[in-house]
């Protein structure tokens, strides 16, 4: 099986994230000085000590910060998957991560719901984090 949809172009800043996903771990970055967590972009953080940043595994638990139900696909590859939900999830550690929301009832999704990470294996080299609604 070869996945032909959008494929992340790994770089030095994101390779640990995708390697972790392939091993079933949600990897995020943490500043050793302030303890703040983030992923790739420092957009949500201040006063990062660049020399102390390390990759750590997240608990994978968090809550929905916001979401949208996509009635149109972002890419022709996803055309037969609409409607689908994409959420911005605030993890317990504080980092905000984007991923598909997996549920049987799209209409019941709400800001603030609890979620837990799972991984959608797309091919031998690529697994993508998704979030199941738990409460």
């Amino acid at each position, binding site marked *: 099986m070869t996945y032909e949809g959008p494929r*992340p172009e790994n770089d030095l800043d994101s390779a640990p994230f995708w390697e972790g996903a392939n091993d079933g771990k949600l990897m995020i970055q943490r500043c050793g000085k302030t303890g703040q967590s983030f992923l790739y972009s420092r*957009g949500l953080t201040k006063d990062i000590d660049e020399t102390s940043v390390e990759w750590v595994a997240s608990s994978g638990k968090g809550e929905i910060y916001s979401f949208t139900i996509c009635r149109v696909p972002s890419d022709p590859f996803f055309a037969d998957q609409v409607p689908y939900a994409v959420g*911005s999830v605030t993890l317990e550690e504080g980092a905000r991560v984007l991923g598909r929301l997996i549920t049987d009832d799209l209409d019941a999704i709400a800001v603030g719901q609890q979620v837990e990470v799972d991984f959608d294996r797309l091919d031998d080299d690529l697994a993508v984090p998704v979030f199941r609604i738990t409460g």
Partner: protein
Amino acid sequence: MSRDPVIVGVADVPLHERGRAMPGTTILGMQRDCALEALGEAGLALSDVDGLCVAGFWGMAESPAPGAMATLQMAEYLGLHDLKYLDNTNTGGSAFVVHAGHAAEMIRAGICDTVLILYGSLQKSESSRKLGGRRALYTQQFERVAGLPTPVGGYAMAAQRHMAEFGTTRETLAEIAVSTRAWAAMNDNAAFRDPMTVDDVLGAPGICDPLGRFDCCLITDGGGAVVMTTAERAKDLKTKPINVLGHGECTSHYCINYMPDMARLDVARESSTRAYAMAGRTAADMDLAMIYDSFTITVLLSLEAIGLCKPGEGKDFVAGGRIGPGGEFPVNTNGGGLSYCHPGMYGIFTIIEATRQLRGDAGERQQDGLVHAVCHGTGGVLASGATLVLSNDKG
């Protein structure tokens, strides 16, 4: 005093058949035509221009796209050989509002005297706007793989967060689209002029919940020009000069997931605070707001952030046609990106319309007694904010 920056000329591309430029129009030619019209109404010529600002995404299929070096391409095409100030700043749709701020300071400082700001796009005629096939790299790798349509999905998440925090409804967003359409009915150049109701907006196909078809800006061709010079030079020109009293800009993120607070447009709060402070004015002094309406939620977030109302109170500000024709506070009197045109980077049209309104040249949609206008541009996925405070009175 004499070097205070003013706007002396504006022009926008005539559109036909629901937002198409005339067949045979080129991306460079449409900008030349606008430049000549905007300079001409002031009594200026290309030979007077010594500053040039351009931004665009022309020829996106090629690499590098010609629009990536837009100022060089346009300077060559227009035969401008001794420019003292070039500005290719591309902050997305806010770029031209940013340009006007930069140009104001270059003029004030005596670096140059007369600046031409240009924009052109044929994205509808060339069917060049596509969602698919975009590379999943840098911070965007996460949203591409997750399948978030950009930019609409990002704006939809901001709308969803605003609803969760403030109880905003789809009806409130629809009111914005309806008022904007009513203004468009008075703009001969608007792509969509048929009356529209709240029910029309709510019943339209969904795109990314909670945003439906009519919550989203159009996809059209279009372009425009703005000419700025010194107040001293303007004394000899044919148009009524419009003063650029203040400007400000700000940015906070690139991808929507890194927007610090999706329910509050912090970049607009910051850029407008800077613009009002420079102008020595407050939001309460504004008589007209021209706000980049990429989506209905963009207007709501902007109104709250630039101080026309408080966060969460936008629903009252736009209710019952308050921002439409005959309402208490005119917003987007040209019909906006929602109903007039949206060629991809709309910001320049906020300046063009505000200038016409402040000069008294807005025809059927002219508002009486205007003194101050605020223009606010948003770029990227709520990523960039740029604000101008304009006035027809130096005060």
